[in-house]
């Protein structure tokens, strides 16, 4: 396969994965106002669960140690990855979302993130510690008997279909009365509580769904690159996703998709082509974060709602029969 095409294919799969991540984050942060600074943890858990559910039992001579090793066929490991991430999201939610204050929530999630990162990175029996796990089988590859190049196209299609399904679902949720109640909680949790909304329950559901998305995204990544280790999900990755969402437009799933394209895909990839500086291989990754940071500040300064802001809600047309407005078609639809 042509190297450029192979590269673009890889970028496309990464983009699909980033989309799924930013949509989950959008439901939590953009729609429900939940500050989950441990978001990348759920991505990682999804990846590890998917990987170890797909891998066979850990062979003592392979040099890897990990739990599970169920050798389950696609898509079970992927779904399991999403579900376990969602369950962990609920667990964190019980601690982080019980109180009303968002600073409390932020502190709890940052701490949980650090704890989970340290446990996975240092406790080798779980997911092989810092070395991470590798050799995860490609989904359906042996079943389909495709050669490497054709399989790349197949995987892109598979990831694309999964992304599309997840997009339709998240759009439906965002624009439903459920999504409206989440938005109201973001705007003023006390007021929604005063209208009889069990705001804790709503936020827990948003937490679970968002973490499910993160988990599926992580699962897709490990199924694509067949390996995963802690260098792939440092706390900085959460920052990149928040930046993508804020720049693209929080509250708007299209904005999230635009942000995912601009920030992690285009800007971060572009920095790969910066000239290499001798004796400092950490400079470019650092510069990458600087670029994202500057982009974020510029957006917040000039277009705080993001490139594609949340749109006004649309409602069905209703004919109002009140005398004052008899002549008027109560056309509430908005652009």
């Amino acid at each position, binding site marked *: 396969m042509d190297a450029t095409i192979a590269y673009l294919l890889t970028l496309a799969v990464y983009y699909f994965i980033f989309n799924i991540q930013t949509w989950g984050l959008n439901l939590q942060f953009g729609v429900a106002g939940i500050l989950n600074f441990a978001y990348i943890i759920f991505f990682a858990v999804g990846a590890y669960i998917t990987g170890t559910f797909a891998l066979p039992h850990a062979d003592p001579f392979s040099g890897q140690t990990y739990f599970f090793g169920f050798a389950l066929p696609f898509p079970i490991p992927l779904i399991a990855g999403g579900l376990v991430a969602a369950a962990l999201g609920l667990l964190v939610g019980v601690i982080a979302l019980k109180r009303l204050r968002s600073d409390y929530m932020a502190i709890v999630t940052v701490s949980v993130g650090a704890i989970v990162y340290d446990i996975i990175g240092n406790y080798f029996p779980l997911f092989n510690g810092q070395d991470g796990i590798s050799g995860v089988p490609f989904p359906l590859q042996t079943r389909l008997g495709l050669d490497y190049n054709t399989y790349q196209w197949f995987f892109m299609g598979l990831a694309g279909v999964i992304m599309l399904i997840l997009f339709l679902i998240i759009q439906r949720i965002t624009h439903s009365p459920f999504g409206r109640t989440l938005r109201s909680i973001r*705007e003023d949790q006390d*007021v929604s*509580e*005063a209208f*009889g*909304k069990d705001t804790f329950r709503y936020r827990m559901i948003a937490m679970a769904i968002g973490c499910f998305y993160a988990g599926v995204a992580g699962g897709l990544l490990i199924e694509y690159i067949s390996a995963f280790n802690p260098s792939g999900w440092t706390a900085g990755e959460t920052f990149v996703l928040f930046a993508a969402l804020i720049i693209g437009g929080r509250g708007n799933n299209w904005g999230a998709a635009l942000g995912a394209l601009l920030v992690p895909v285009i800007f971060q990839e572009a920095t790969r082509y910066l000239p290499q500086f001798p004796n400092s291989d950490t400079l470019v990754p650092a510069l990458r974060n600087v670029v994202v940071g500057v982009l974020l500040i510029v957006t917040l300064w000039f277009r705080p709602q993001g490139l594609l802001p949340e749109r006004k809600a649309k409602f069905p047309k209703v004919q109002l029969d*009140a005398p004052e407005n008899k002549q008027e078609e109560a056309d509430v639809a908005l652009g």
Partner: protein
Amino acid sequence: MSPSAEAQPQPVAPATTTAPILRVEHVTHAFGGVNAINDCSFEVQTGSITALIGPNGAGKSTMVNVISGFYPLQQGQILFDGQSVRGLAAHSIAQRGLIRTFQISRDYGAMTVLENLMVPPKHQVGENLFNVFFRPWLVAREEKELVRKALDMLNTFGLYEKREDYARSLSGGQKRLLEMARALMADPKMLLLDEPMAGVNPALADRLAQHIMDLRGKGLTVLMIEHNLGIVDQIAQDVVVMANGTTLARGTMVEIRSHPEVISAYLGGA
């Protein structure tokens, strides 16, 4: 139509029924070591408009927060509709039909005026994700009903033209109207209004007063905190005076005005 003309002094009718919908019994509430409410008791008759008055810092807003479950009930007893609110979360109390507003108006700023009104209706089928995905027709039908109800409400409160505007873009007075319209969308049995007319001009205050009187006609009970005694005189059948966290006096405005302790503690000879 000039609502202010209609809102001119009318004879104050006595409370229609005698059964209290809300009983506050010996409630004490402390912040740290300081009692903001101290052994306070009063009742609100079903179908009445009751005013809760008292000087700044008397504990009125704290009382609203305790009644509505925003602060846990520490001491004493509160019965709404015959049932204790002890241990209930704020949203559970609201689901029983006791809807409160806040002293400072709190709109859902980044949502439109119409969408603000679409939030409060209770137990919406579309708030359940199972229905959203598997019974979308039920959700669509309910949405249509709610939009109609919300537009009617906006029409009543003179906000129809603003329906597509962001709530944050409304003026202070319009936000007060929005708060009341929005609270009514929850179909309350009883409204707990914390200074619903704070900061509005006299004409709008009259209009809000008229709205509150209309509510009473529809069988709602209202407990409102209000500093303007003229308005209290005009719309409230019962008055509860709080000072230093406790009930100083209860009765009609006429009775309250002649109460010597009230005069010295609050009215200051007004």
